[in-house]
């Protein structure tokens, strides 16, 4: 009779629980108005909030545009890449 192999959970508790940040990085080509519009479309942010994040990207080189669970964070990064923004996921400190 074949033995049942129980696979061990490979994800650590930390990877599941730690909040994740979606970070957008500056690049000199994307237009500021375009970046702000993408934030409104992807996250449903108000024009003011979207512009605040856009200006943070422009002046500080990066902005944490969203924080939360890993899965939606990955989905947001994918959508931002769909708009050709430089976006990454990182663990929240």
């Amino acid at each position, binding site marked *: 009779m074949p033995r049942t192999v129980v696979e061990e959970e490979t994800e650590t508790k930390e990877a599941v629980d730690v909040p994740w940040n979606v970070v957008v990085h500056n690049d*000199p080509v994307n*237009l500021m108005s375009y970046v702000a519009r993408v934030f409104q479309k992807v996250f449903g942010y108000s024009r003011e909030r979207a512009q605040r994040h856009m200006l943070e990207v422009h002046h500080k080189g990066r902005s944490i545009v969203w924080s939360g669970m890993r899965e939606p964070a*990955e989905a947001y990064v*994918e959508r931002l*890449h769909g708009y050709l923004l430089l976006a*990454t996921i*990182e663990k929240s400190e």
Partner: protein
Amino acid sequence: MQISRLDEQTLQISQLDPLLGELLHRVVASADPTGSAAAQERLFSKPSEDPEESGFIEDWQEYVKPELRHLFQSALEVISGDLGRMRAESSAGGSTLTIPMSHVENWIHGLNQARLALSARHAFTEEDMDRILPLAGDPHSLALLQVRFYGILQELFLQELDDD
């Protein structure tokens, strides 16, 4: 060059001189990153900077990148279709392009893709973006002219969507 609304559903770019018409015809080819590692890298950037996320990045390359490629290609096909309907004006050698408002998002995306691919391919810096355009006829200067012109169009299209 003049941008106007023909009606609620249609945008028209008229009085396009031959040079601007030619630059528009180059949007699709310019957005193609083939043959440039820098352009490929920029259009398909990594979703994480963490070395510990190498497995996630590999999965991304395998599953997400093809979806993004398809998405980008779709926008360029819409642009290509519109450009195929560009027509010559009777006077002064100009041309007119009509764009359905439902295509404007695709145009904004395609112009952005072309700007990013050209900038990566020619390694343009932030200073390049701000400096006065040289009148030299070399490929580098022409690419910079394209990036600037496509940026102006992007801004105009974004304003049209804002007004919509």
